[in-house]
């Protein structure tokens, strides 16, 4: 049975600090986990009016039975620059489920 503790730990590290190493560690842990689906949740009910609405948004990660494994931020800060981080979810599929 696949252990998801590594991907949870890597996600926790991302919430504390988003640096290149933490993102790479997360991408590796995600590949080794049994994550199957993602769902992006935007702050402010998806009405993104300010940068904070985006930086507070996150992606929930689920296994094949739609049990939530963890969640991660979807925007990464690179010094003064802000970039999206959805590329680190490559390999997962959108869940499209309305009420998980």
């Amino acid at each position: 049975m696949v252990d998801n503790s590594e991907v949870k730990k890597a996600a926790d590290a991302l919430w504390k600090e988003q640096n290149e190493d933490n993102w790479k560690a997360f991408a590796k842990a995600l590949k080794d986990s049994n994550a199957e689906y993602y769902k992006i949740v935007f702050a402010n009910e998806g009405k993104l009016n300010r940068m904070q609405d985006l930086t507070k948004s996150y992606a929930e990660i689920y296994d094949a039975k739609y049990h939530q494994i963890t969640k991660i931020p979807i925007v990464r800060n690179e010094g003064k620059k802000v970039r999206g981080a959805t590329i680190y979810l490559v390999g997962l599929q959108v869940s499209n489920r309305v009420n998980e």
Partner: protein
Amino acid sequence: MIKQDLNALEEKSIYIIREAKLKFKNIAALWSMGKDSTTMLALARKAFLGKVPFPVIHIDNSIDFPETYKFRQDLAKEWNLDLIVAQSEIKPDLVGSACCGKNKPETLKKVMDEHGFDALIVSIRRDEHGVRAKERYFSERDKDFKWDYKNQAAELWDNYSSKLDKKGHIRVHPLLDWNEIDIWSYIKQENIPVNPLYFSRNGYRYRSLGCTHCTVPLRSEAKTIDDIISELETTVDEERSGRSMDKEREMVMQRLRSLGYM
């Protein structure tokens, strides 16, 4: 939606792509990994014996769908594409039309200046939006990417103007005559790979793909291309009804396109 003759559409699109390649010194194509631009690349491969003979640009604002990135990675490798990923930064004015009207064209402008492209193939279709219906096959943009849609040359007897304002560029639109059903029928006929987001999962699918924050899925049970075609034959919803920027204000698309949006 009426299904047209795919052979005639294919022939005309290939003619336009070949004309563009012949007339311009440095041409590139935009690829969003959506069904239309992927179909255009398939047509280019057919026109040039299996090879896309120009660079392909993806304007990446870094919050596209993971499936889109995976599709980009896989198809670029399989079709041996000369892919240019132009990364745009997320800026505070990120929302809807402000993002598409400013962030994306600015990034495109930068990459076009860097590479000196004089023409750009864009896979828009007339049936997508009223404003796109005003386009020509070869459509001029000035140095600021602005489109003077009230002052365009007529394109009679398949003669296209390739005259260029010194610092501007020409947008080439080989798919203008196609409609959504034609695209799906051609994808089926030619077995063209498509982004998996177009197919239904848990009762929803994406009919038009953009970035994660401005695209929502629509209710649908279409799990195959045949299902999608059947759905399109009876739907009364617009293709871009899942794209938030189209709903913001009346004429927003006309304003965006006149400012350089694709």
